[in-house]
């Protein structure tokens, strides 16, 4: 999905409505969505804050409409609401996409705890549906010993068919504070000095700990 668009909008659409808390919260939404798209793995569920924020906007909008306030004010609130709704929708869509791609992997690792209750239900159903589909069109028609959806054959020792996210991929990231000399590989041959507020392109795998610890942001 169009990741760049959100960044562009961040500059333009910020002003025009009162309430400092609301304004900030909207910005957080942008960051969350961007992080969600850039991250090859799945981030934690950010609680229901986004949803509450939208309810608040909806209520404000109703209030203004009932009071027959200035048309301009109403339409500004409408636009802010639209913007927040778009962010929430694309954020949830990206999460669903990741769940669809790696559902079996997620269900077997601690990534499962990062899903919301509804997402867990969705993932379970997706696994069942995919299993049924592959079962009836391929697996049930193969010889005994080759009918598993997880193992290539009965002689495989582990699940060697489950797709996993590619963590070796490069990501754009921005440091929040000075990290200092940081080792990128296991052997210590590649070391980079991470300075505050700088942009880097690095392998996700090597900076995963910094992302989880909140010291670096994906952009």
């Amino acid at each position, binding site marked *: 999905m169009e990741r760049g668009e959100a960044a562009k909008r961040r500059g333009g659409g910020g002003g025009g409505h009162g309430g400092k808390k609301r304004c900030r919260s909207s910005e957080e939404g942008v960051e969350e969505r961007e992080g969600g798209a850039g991250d090859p793995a799945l981030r934690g569920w950010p609680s229901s804050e986004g949803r509450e924020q939208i309810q608040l906007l909806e209520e404000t909008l109703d209030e203004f409409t009932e009071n027959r306030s200035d048309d301009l004010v109403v339409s500004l609130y409408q636009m802010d609401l639209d913007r927040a709704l778009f962010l929430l929708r694309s954020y949830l869509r990206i999460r669903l996409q990741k769940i669809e791609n790696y559902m079996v992997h997620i269900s077997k690792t601690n990534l499962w705890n990062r899903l919301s209750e509804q997402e867990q239900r969705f993932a379970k159903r997706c696994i069942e549906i995919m299993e049924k589909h592959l079962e009836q069109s391929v697996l049930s028609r193969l010889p005994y010993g080759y009918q598993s959806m997880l193992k290539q054959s009965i002689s495989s020792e582990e699940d060697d*068919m489950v797709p*996993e996210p590619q963590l070796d991929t490069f990501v754009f990231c921005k440091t929040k504070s000075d990290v200092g000399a940081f080792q990128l590989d296991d052997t210590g041959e590649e070391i980079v000095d991470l300075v505050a507020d700088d942009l880097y392109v690095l392998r996700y795998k090597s900076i995963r700990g910094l992302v989880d610890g909140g010291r670096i942001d994906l952009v």
Partner: protein
Amino acid sequence: MLSYYDIDDILLGEEPISVVFQIGANGVGLLDPGSETNNVEKSAKVDLPFWLAHELFLRQAVSINVPSCYSLKTRKEIQADAACVDLRFRSPYFYELGCKLLPLVADKSIGPFLRYTFTSRYKEILCKSHSITGATPKFSSKLTKEESLLLEAARSSMVAFKKWRVGGSRLEKASILGRKRKPTMPTQPSGP
């Protein structure tokens, strides 16, 4: 497994590799199962698809010969003018196959050679991607699969950038429905 369902990873396995059998194998011809000539003899030289060659190598049943696309002749051509060499003809999975072969063969110079080839061609691809208009140019038929994707990525981001600058409609019909619409749609779209 990272890429069990990955189409390119599977197709790359179809690239032919010349191997020498270190031990015979019986009953591997499907055409005539009863006959004795169904067997591959020891030290027979056979072309196998890479996936089979790889697995048999791991079981020490075959030894692998480095394919001709990494030969001295190709290396000289690359050194002379990297961008002009038709790599797709040699193998559409030139880089990926090379990476997978590296641990299986004694000649470790393939690694630096692949890196040199990729970086020398990379610049050319990005430069050309800006000037492409309309029909696919001749040089793109010489690119490997990976290089074509790179070219396409560069081209489409250029198009997207131009579109963003000019503005215009961002809402479009689903591309899978094709240009022509059937006169009757079976569905009536529901209101929100």
